[in-house]
């Protein structure tokens, strides 16, 4: 019987995987909880007890707990702690869904990070956008700044593709700089 697994690149170990070039580095970020909040975002904010200050595309997020706007009535909440608000629909008008296992977080740093972003999206990082959900490297991703780095949330099922895209484009950037 043919071994079709040989046709596919082995899935990286996301705990240790890193692409480290002289001009940029990318690795996955683990240990963060992610959940989507949909509906009445102001009411959810009061229920959870944090100010509603979501970042949009290429906005600046800080700390271990923050919110990212992904649609007019939807937030991606990133937190070191699990949600204190129960999952599911709430009568006050919002719903909470945990997506920690569904999305993988990557972090890019280095001088060529902007070059990589320029090849990934047509959106101007200097102008930003109300929603951080953008087309990035040909897939839908959530992109913003966190400290000096750029954080990218992608569907876990597309993470291997995204990883191979970064490896290829990173090689192109290195060749152009040489």
């Amino acid at each position: 019987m043919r071994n079709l697994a040989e046709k596919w690149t082995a899935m990286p170990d996301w705990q240790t995987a890193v692409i480290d070039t002289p001009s940029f580095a990318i690795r996955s970020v683990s240990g963060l909880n992610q959940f989507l909040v949909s509906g009445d975002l102001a009411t959810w904010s009061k229920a959870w007890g944090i100010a509603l200050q979501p970042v949009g595309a290429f906005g600046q997020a800080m700390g271990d707990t923050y919110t990212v706007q992904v649609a007019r009535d939807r937030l991606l909440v990133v937190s070191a702690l699990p949600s204190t608000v129960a999952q599911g629909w709430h009568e006050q008008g919002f719903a909470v869904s945990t997506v920690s296992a569904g999305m993988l977080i990557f972090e890019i740093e280095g001088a060529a990070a902007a070059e990589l972003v320029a090849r990934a999206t047509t959106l101007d990082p200097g102008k930003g956008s109300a929603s951080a959900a953008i087309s990035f490297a040909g897939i839908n991703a959530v992109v913003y700044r966190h400290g000096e780095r750029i954080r990218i949330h992608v569907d876990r099922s597309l993470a291997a593709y995204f990883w191979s895209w970064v490896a290829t484009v990173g090689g192109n950037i290195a060749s152009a700089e040489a």
Partner: protein
Amino acid sequence: MQLFHCPFCGARDETEFHFGGEAGNLRPDGADAPADRWANYLYMRDNPKGAVREVWVHMNCGEFFVMERDSVSHQVLSSTSLDGAGHAQ
């Protein structure tokens, strides 16, 4: 590349959007609607030259909206959300 305007996100690449049909093509109400009304709803399109009103969706944020544009010059005149609040760009 052409830029479309999502009423929420602002200017984005046209590839982030999906066409949803002519605005105002309302689904017939009730099982008693005559066959020609259904045929008109399903198959007949105005396809005007010049100013058009179309339903589009921004697939990244899920915003449905009506876009007014010129089908000859491709100039986008306005984008108005369909969420009932009338958010516009």
